[in-house]
Each structure stands twice: as C-alpha cells, then as structure tokens.
C-alpha cells in the first residue's frame, strides 16, 4: 500500500509543521547496564518495565474480553449435552451427537460442499495472490498501483455489497448460480488476503540475495523456485490457512451467489436457525470449535503473521 514519494513527503512536511509540542523527550533512555557490558545496554523487550503488574488494568481487561469471547461458545457446548431441547438442564445425553453423526445427511452434504469450495478457492487464490505479490515487489511496472488498490478494496467493503454486486454480475453475464459461482466469489474475497500476507513477507526479503543468485549463474526460474519461494513460504502458508477458514466461514456472500443444490455449511446452519432450531447445532458447534482449535494449534507459528494481516 505504498503511495508515491510525493504524497509521503507532503505528509512528512505536514507533520513537521505541526511540531511545537508540549513535551520534549530524549528518543530513548539507557537502562543501567550490568557491570562489564560494553556499550549502551538495552533490555530484551519482555523484561522491560519490570514493575509491570500482573493484575494491571489492561491485563484484567484482556482476561474479561477473552471470557466474553468464549462465553457463548461455552454455553452452546454445555447445552449440546443436554437431554432436552430447551435451555433448562434436564440431564446428560449424547443424543444430539448421535443425531449429528448418523442422522444428518443433508448437513454433511452441505459440509462436503463447503469443504470442496474452501480447498479449491483457497488454492487458486493462494497461487494467484502469491504470484502477483512476487511480481509487484520484484519488478517495477506501471499498473502496480492499480493492482494494489483493486486488491485492497474487497477486504474492507461490507460483504453485502460484494455479494450483491456478484449476484447482479452473474445474472447479467448469465453464469448459473451454483458451486462454480460460489467458487469464483470465494476466490475473489480470498485473493486480497493472500496477496497482503505474501507482500508483507516480501517486505522483509533482501533482494540483493537475488542478484547474488544471478551472479552465481541461477536462471530466472531457479531464482524464483529456489530463492524466493522458500523464503515466502510462511506468508504463503498463512495466506492459505486464512483463505480456507474464511471460505468455510462465509455466509453473506455465499447467500447471494448460491443456487439450488449448492448449500454450504453456513447456509445450512442459517436455515436451521431460521426454520426451527435443533440442538444438533449445539453438537455441531463443538465439532467445529475443536476443528478450529486443532487448526490454530497446528499453525500456531503463523498466528502472528495472520494477526498482522487483519
């Protein structure tokens, strides 16, 4: 999302004009060095502010917010073991799990649809998005800023807008609504995230390595496959993971572009909520939450990269 140098320098100039501030500080302060340490001593980040209290305001807030985030999940999971349909506890039962696994054909068909779309759309999006990020960071060409803008807007526009514009588009060009249109829509909203994650990774990449590879006789293709691709792999993997979860999760956009026979899991859950809630949803919740937990655990290395992209 870099802008032209002109804009940047204008922004800096504006900043400088606003300068007269009340406080004047030295940019950084030296912490007292242990004896025998040469030069300025900087404590490792985590050890700074050693008086930082465990029960400070921000820590309490964090714990409360996490509790807020998990509370609904706990309620649903608890009631998945309830013998009766309602919210009054009548006894422990695994009935809803039995129903979920052995008596919910339609639900599993919807799940299969979701799965197929998530895998295909995230692979296509990861491939195209990574390629584009490499092209933009590696070379200079005129339409770069166009691609940067067009890849950013879909991330921030409300889903309703993207869904409706795609519905109108598919109708206008007479593409039938179904699995294919859902695949196209999901790839479209996944692309920008992959592009952003891989671009961020390339931001840290030292391009003089490429020159070194060239000087040592590597061809264009060898440079790409043996130097660039391995170093952006964490970005690519985070992008893929993000794309899969977003695709599995999406309801609003899919709602518009789906047709008969292409019900995805979120659409199925929606119809369950609207037309008669069955406690099978509670049981399904636990299964999905466990799945997400495994995913987050398996990819914990990438969580920080993913956080940086949202």
């Amino acid at each position, binding site marked *: 999302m870099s802008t032209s140098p002109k804009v940047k320098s204008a922004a800096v100039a504006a900043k400088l004009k606003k300068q007269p501030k009340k406080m004047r500080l030295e940019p950084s302060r030296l912490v007292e060095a242990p004896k025998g340490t040469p030069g300025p001593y900087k404590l490792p980040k985590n050890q700074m502010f050693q008086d930082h209290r465990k029960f*400070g305001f921000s820590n309490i807030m964090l714990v409360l917010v*996490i509790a807020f985030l998990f509370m609904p*999940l706990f309620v649903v999971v608890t009631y998945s073991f309830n013998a009766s349909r309602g919210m009054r506890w009548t006894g422990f039962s695994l009935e809803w799990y039995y129903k979920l696994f052995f008596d919910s054909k339609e639900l599993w068909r919807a799940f299969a649809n979701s799965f197929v779309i998530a895998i295909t759309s995230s692979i296509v999006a990861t491939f195209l998005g990574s390629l584009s990020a490499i092209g933009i960071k590696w070379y200079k060409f005129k339409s770069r800023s166009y691609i940067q803008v067009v890849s950013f807007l879909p991330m921030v526009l409300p889903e309703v807008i993207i869904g409706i514009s795609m519905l109108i*588009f598919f109708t206008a060009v007479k593409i039938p609504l179904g699995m294919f249109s859902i695949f196209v829509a999901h*790839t479209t909203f996944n692309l920008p995230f992959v592009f952003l994650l891989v671009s961020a990774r390339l931001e840290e990449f030292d391009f003089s390595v490429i020159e070194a590879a060239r000087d040592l006789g590597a061809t264009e293709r060898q440079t790409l496959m043996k130097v660039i691709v391995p170093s952006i792999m964490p970005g690519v993997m985070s992008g893929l993971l993000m794309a899969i979860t977003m695709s599995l999760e999406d309801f609003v956009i899919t709602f518009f572009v789906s047709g008969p026979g292409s019900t995805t899991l979120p659409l199925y859950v929606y119809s369950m909520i609207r037309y008669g809630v069955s406690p099978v949803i*509670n049981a399904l919740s636990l299964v999905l939450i466990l799945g997400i937990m495994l995913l987050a655990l398996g990819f914990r290395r990438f969580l920080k990269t993913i956080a940086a992209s949202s």
Partner: protein
Amino acid sequence: MNSHMQEKRGRRLGITYSAPMGLWLTFFFLVPLCIIILYSFLKKGLYGGVEWEFTLTAYRQMLNPNFMRVFLRTLWVAALSTVITITLALPCGYAMARSRHQVMWLALVIIPFWTNSLIRIYAWIAILSSEGFVNEALKALGVIGESLPLIYNQGAVITVLIYMYIPFAILPLFTTIDKFDFQLLEAARDLGASKPESIFKVLIPNIRSGIITAVIFTFIPIFGAYTVPLLVGGKDSYMIGNIIVDQVTKTRNWPLASAFSLVITVVSTIGVIWMMTSTASERARLKAPAQVVDANGGIS
C-alpha cells in the same frame, strides 16, 4: 544484457506474474461494482432486473424518510459499536503485546473469531432469548418471575456486533503496539509524566495507524451488517444492509439496492483513503527517524 533491456524484461515479467490476479479482480470485483453503478441509474424491471432507461428514480426513492431514518440509525449503531469496540480492544492489544505468551493470547482471540459466525450468533440467541440461558438461570435463582426482553432489540444488536467485530480491532492494535518501543513510555515517566499522560501523549499518538486500521475494519463491516440485525434485532433495529437485501430478494428493486450499495461503497472508499494516507505518513516518518525526532523530540 544491458540495463535498459533488463529493465524492459523485468517490467514484462512483473506484468506476467501480476496479471492473473489483476485480471481476476478486475473481472469479478471491479466489473460487478461498475454494473452496480450503472444499474443505480436505470429503471426497475418488473420481476427483478432492469430496463434500459436512464432515470434517477432510485436516488429519489432513497430520500424517503423511512430510509433516511434507517440510514441514520445505521450510522449511530455503527459509530457507537465502533467506539465501544476500540475502547475495549485497546487495553487488550496492549496487554497482549506486553505479554510473554503472545501466541497463546493470539490463539485465544483467533479461535472464537474463526468459529462459524452463524454458530456464534446462534449462541447469542441461545443466551438472550426469553427461554434462553440468562433468563432461565435468573428464574432458577428466583431473581425474576418473568423473562426479561433481552433479545430482538437495539441493545442485543449492539452487544452481538461488538462481540463479532472485537477481534478485527484487537488484531491490528496488537500488531502495531507490538512494534512500539516501550522504552519511550518509561522515558516519559522518568521525565515526570503521569501514567495516563504517558499513555495518551506517547503511546496513543505512536500507534495512530493501528487505531485507524482498527476503526476502519470495525466501522465499515458494521455499517454494512446484515446477519446480526436480522437474527437478533427487532423491528426497530433494521439496518441498511437489511434494506439492501430486501430490495434484492423481496421487492426486487435492483436499482434501489444498487444505489444504496453505491453509497456504502463511497463511504468505505473514503475511509480506506484516509487510512492509507495516514499509514503512508507514518511509514515515511519511520523511514526518516532522525529528521522527525529532531523536530519532534522523539514523541508523537
């Protein structure tokens, strides 16, 4: 190979690599947006669709006081939820950035965030409804005799919206605060600033771009929210998103839906431009630290 040829080749390769995504987004994102702009100036078809006749009817219909009321309500709900969300998310992002267990906290924020949004909304219905968790629990404790009206009203919509979008605020705030040099806070304290002073005059100005990103990523999606007001809202909590969807699926007034969508798109685009320019200015500042520190005294 001389440098001119190399540059030309590089440009060609860059375009080759980027073209597939560029074309994909042009066809499936930009063209649909342009169609919406076009449709908003056309006449409504009898059974959905449009007739090719230029008219401003859609925009005239938008000025209907009922729609204006919903528009203002949407603006109000989005603004209020965003302010509460950011206020809650700021200390969280700060605590996470200072923590030794960053990955654990991130996982705890991301797990509910990745859980199917409809499941989460359903969970809130189960909690708030008249035979829901809260009411049943209060009745069992003998606090209330009759169920409290906790759902299908504005309060429920705002609570659930905050719930759904708080991770969108925490994550960028965490990322920005994580990059912040906490020694600056210590320096401020040493120079006599009180704790709130050091937070508001040193930390907040330095993480401005993160706050703006968080605001954009909460305000815009809430402004276009559809599912939450539909499922936990009542008659008084209809939002623009619901109007748009009704125009498409029920009234079949595609030009009006397009016109509303266009308004939201314009609002979002302005927000994005604001965010991009502020991020760019911050980056420029980071790249030329000496210059700014001299004039700025190392803060803000």
